[in-house]
């Protein structure tokens, strides 16, 4: 198709020549610079044009001018936000992410934007497709924090608390020399999700930056207090605490999570009972977990059975609950497959680790440091060893 370099800029153009992306690049620049004007005229058309471009452009060409490409994506994002229709930006941005990535392990600035749109549109499953890839390469730390934070929120929306915790953990323990607001918010959610998932908040691992270790708790005091209150095991105390601080939790947009923390308290107490009793009356359950009536106890136990959180049977005639052992015998073929695939995955990971280790051992800067260390003082492996020792 003919070059359109000299033709006047027309917003109604729809077809994008794939062979001459270069020309479109120049046109795109003008789009970007005068998008304000164009929006006034075009509105929905601009969106469609850009969306089409993003889905059908060539990845190689894009990588030659990544900054401009990122700009275009931002235009798209701003557009859908303006139109209050974030869902329309999801498919194009997902394609864009795939195109600009050099490998599936790389984090791009688009990741965070994409996840944000998924969150706003409540399309959590769409976010999963990007979150499933593990990230090992990061160019810009700012992207990482936002990626972890939004990603965690998506997992929380899907109630996959363990994966949410992984992302939040990375955000909290990433190397940093000064605290940023994203990490503070991430830590607040980290406390809440830890309580829901395991009933306690683990202490900072030793590789956490000293900035985080010293300052995070100061900025998140009520969450720290909440976790102490949770530790006492008293539902009523926790409830009172939450009520009196409801406003603060609301301002942080964490009230929904906080309510889940509260209901997790019952679950945890009931689970503790399964360790001690074979059968227990609903009345006793209600009294030991601080519920008001046996009916409520029955409701909670029923819900937990349905969610697969405990294995039990309710005998309504006698008002008794029998707690059963986990029926998993680890003998089924699904389980064997699961174990097998885990082993494969871990072996691959282990291989990757070894190769990175070898690369570093050959790295010039590393060798210089080792050399000077040997000359100066006793060379201590622990200084360079960041793999947790429990695996040795």
């Amino acid at each position: 198709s003919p070059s359109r370099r000299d033709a006047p800029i027309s917003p109604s153009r729809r077809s994008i020549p794939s062979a001459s992306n270069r020309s479109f690049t120049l046109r795109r620049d003008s789009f970007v610079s005068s998008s304000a004007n164009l929006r006034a005229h075009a509105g929905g058309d601009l969106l469609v044009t850009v969306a089409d471009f993003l889905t059908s452009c060539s990845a190689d060409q894009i990588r030659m001018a990544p900054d401009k490409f990122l700009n275009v994506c931002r235009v798209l994002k701003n557009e859908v936000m303006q139109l209050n229709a974030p869902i329309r930006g999801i498919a194009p941005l997902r394609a864009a992410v795939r195109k600009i990535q050099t490998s599936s392990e790389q984090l791009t600035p688009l990741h965070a934007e994409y996840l944000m749109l998924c969150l706003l549109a409540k399309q959590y499953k769409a976010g999963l497709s990007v979150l499933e890839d593990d990230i090992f390469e990061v160019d810009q730390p700012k992207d990482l924090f936002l990626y972890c934070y939004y990603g965690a929120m998506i997992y929380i929306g899907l109630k996959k608390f363990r994966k949410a915790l992984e992302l939040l953990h990375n955000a909290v323990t990433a190397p940093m020399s000064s605290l940023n607001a994203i990490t503070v918010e991430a830590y607040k959610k980290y406390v809440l999700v830890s309580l829901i998932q395991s009933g306690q908040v683990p202490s900072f691992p030793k590789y956490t930056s000293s900035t985080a270790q010293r300052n995070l708790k100061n900025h998140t005091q009520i969450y720290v207090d909440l976790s102490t209150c949770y530790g006492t095991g008293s539902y009523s105390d926790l409830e009172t605490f939450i009520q009196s601080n409801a406003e603060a939790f609301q301002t942080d947009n964490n009230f929904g999570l906080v309510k889940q923390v509260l209901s997790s308290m019952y679950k945890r107490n009931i689970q503790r009972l399964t360790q001690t009793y074979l059968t227990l009356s609903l009345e006793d359950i209600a009294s030991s977990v601080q519920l008001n009536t046996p009916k409520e106890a029955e409701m909670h136990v029923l819900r937990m059975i349905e969610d697969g959180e405990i294995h039990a049977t309710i005998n309504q005639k006698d008002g008794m609950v029998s707690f059963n052992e986990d029926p998993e015998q680890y003998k089924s073929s699904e389980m064997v497959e699961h174990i097998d695939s885990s082993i494969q995955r871990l072996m691959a990971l282990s291989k990757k680790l070894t190769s990175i280790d070898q690369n570093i051992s050959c790295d010039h800067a590393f060798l210089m440091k080792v050399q000077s260390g040997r000359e100066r003082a006793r060379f201590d492996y622990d200084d360079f060893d960041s793999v947790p020792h429990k695996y040795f």
Partner: protein
Amino acid sequence: VSAAAAAAVTNGLGGGEQAAAAPVSADQLDVEAYAAQYSGRTRVARLLFIAERCGVEAIQLEALRMAHDEARAREDTVLYLDAVLKINSRLGPRYRHDQAWVDSVNRRAEQRKEKLETELNGYRTNLIKESIRMGYNDIGDFFYAHGHLSEAFKSYIRTRDYCTTSKHIVQMCMHVILVSIELGQFAHVTNYVSKAEQTPDTLDAVIVAKLRAAAGLANLETKKYKLAARKFLETGPELGSNYSEVIAPQDVAVYGALCALASFDRSELKSKVIDNINFRNFLELVPEVRELVNDFYASRYGSCLEHLEKLKPNLLLDIHLREHLGTLYNDIRHKAIIQYTLPFISVDLNTMASAFKSSVSMLEKELAALITENKIQARIDSHNKILYARHADQRNATFQRALQTGNEFERDIKAMLLRANLIKHDFNQKNWL
């Protein structure tokens, strides 16, 4: 002499050299017989302690009266004033606050003190080690007799520099131990016991026994019950009533037996307590305690706990044991429960409750607590009131653990690789802010 004491004397089986009264018995405490076991300052201190805690006015007044007389006889003004205060004019004119007597005693004490100090200064200028040592000792004794414990402590410590033979060192240690026990500073007691035990000469058997008893006491007060039990059990019968200024042999028996029950396992209990010939001498002095140890070993838990309950009110009046009684009793009870359930696959809670003389619901709660603390491997069938032993399925547990370790490994390694990457690019927030 009260009827109980007379009965105790006829019942008592003890070594020939010592009065066989058994004041720690289930009967109401015989204050006179109890006090007769002790001498020196501890007698008064114990009487005052009993008076404060016993709650029965007759006994209280009896104890206070004896304390008062004793303090007056010893010219210990500190204890005398304490006793008078507590008596509060309830015992008649003879027991009222006699300031004149106090003043005269203090005056005489001042004079003696000056004399001793001048003597000491004389010795110090002469630089004769032995005299200086004896001078400090005398001053220490003087302070101790008049109730000024910290000064006594300091004086005794000062003799250390002038000790020349191991006999001197041992003497110093014994003095310091005595004062430290009364001051309640049991760290010093342990210290000086080991100092005394480390002297190169072999020690007199009585002194060895005294040191063991003192060490046991120190461990008891610092809540190291197992060590305390060991020390008491190692105390030789030579102790007799030679250490009455600190502890009576009945006490050794009681403390040792209770600590052993609370902290030893079955094999240790058999070898160190029941088969221990030396300790048998002590146990004979308190037949009830001997009974309850045997009951425990023979699994007659109901009767064992009954004996404990009967002894409890009198034991609460013991100056060293009172604070620890609750913990010790709890530990013994828990041990009994755990031992009871150990041999069975299933236990009917009703039978168990009657064996332990408690209600089924209380027992169920105790069991639940012990299971949560992982001291019993079992689960409760609350509907049928049966306790079932539970043995974890090793195979399933292994699979579970393996999968969990795999997950943790994966998570940690991925996080670490990410962090390594971040560090590799040497991110400094100044760059991107």
